[in-house]
């Protein structure tokens, strides 16, 4: 009987330990918001290497990418997580948009096909996440239905969320507009590209995941 109780306690403790060790931190948002740029910033800051390729053409990330065991430190605290960079979520994809961005028709059609699969995978991965950072482009309208749907879904799943208003270095950026669109969340204006306000971002991350 004692052995059974011991085994049960061990199992529970192992389960807790395993869960803590494998926190999945997802980067979500519409295409071209700067998810991979932020993933690269985090990886460069703490691992000294990039995570994925970035480009001005939308849907550059078309597969879920994972960087395991990212360990970050801030104000004496430490946090270890698996960073999951997801393809941008969109309701429509048109290969002609990629042609306008300079791709050849065949490449554009292939990219569109892969991008649709990427959107499906991003949505599938929602269930796996422990904490999510929503990366929005601060130069664009924050009230789009895709943004509202992503935020609403995470809320319904009770997943802790931090919203990042990225590209704050650009003149058109309006961080306050993003903050007023999602008043129930902590919204931090950053420039993932140049690292502006990144310390505040890490503090915010500790606040929801630490």
């Amino acid at each position, binding site marked *: 009987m004692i052995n059974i109780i011991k085994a049960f306690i061990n199992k529970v403790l192992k389960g807790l330990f395993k869960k803590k060790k494998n926190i999945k931190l997802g980067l979500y948002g519409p295409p071209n918001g700067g998810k991979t740029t932020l993933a690269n910033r985090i990886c460069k800051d703490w691992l000294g290497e990039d995570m994925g390729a970035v480009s001005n053409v939308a849907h550059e990330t078309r597969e879920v990418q994972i960087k395991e065991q990212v360990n970050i430190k801030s104000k004496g605290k430490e946090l270890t997580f698996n960073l999951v960079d997801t393809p941008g*979520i*969109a*309701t*429509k*994809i*048109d290969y002609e948009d990629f042609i306008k961005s300079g791709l050849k028709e065949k490449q554009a059609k292939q990219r*569109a*096909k892969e991008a*649709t*699969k990427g*959107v*499906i995978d991003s*949505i*599938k991965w*929602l269930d796996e996440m422990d904490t999510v950072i929503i990366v929005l482009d601060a130069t664009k309208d924050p*009230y789009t*239905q*895709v943004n*509202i*749907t992503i935020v*609403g*879904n995470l*809320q*319904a799943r009770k997943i802790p969320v931090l919203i990042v208003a990225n590209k704050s270095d650009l003149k058109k950026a309006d961080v306050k507009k993003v903050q007023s669109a999602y008043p129930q969340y902590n919204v931090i204006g950053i420039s993932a590209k140049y690292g502006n306000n990144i310390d505040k971002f890490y503090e915010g991350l500790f606040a929801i995941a630490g």
Partner: protein
Amino acid sequence: MVTLQFVPYHEIEDLGSARRVKKLIDIVKQNKIVLLQGRLKKEEETDLISIAMEEFGDKFKGIELAVINPKNNDATGLKKARNNFFRFLLGNRQGLTIIGPANIVTEIKKDPNKIELYTKEAKKRKKK
């Protein structure tokens, strides 16, 4: 010509999530714009996006989606309590969901007092 199809909430009320989403996507794939009374569950909204992407092809490029959910944030006291009571009673019947095929509807703009639907034909005419 653009066709709008109104779907009353009772038509989807008793369907499971998968069948609800399929019903709506099937209408959109006929190049019709769906005006759904009320709104889908949050998870169904993402399912709708997923299914739209699965159906992607030469003739179907996805959807434009807009959910209008009336909220009177200025209400206080008794008025607020009354609004909350009606929201509780009506549940997902409140509001309006617009789903259009992306090859016809290019953008949906929401405003507290109006909804603007931009179609490809309108854009071409504007260019002329």
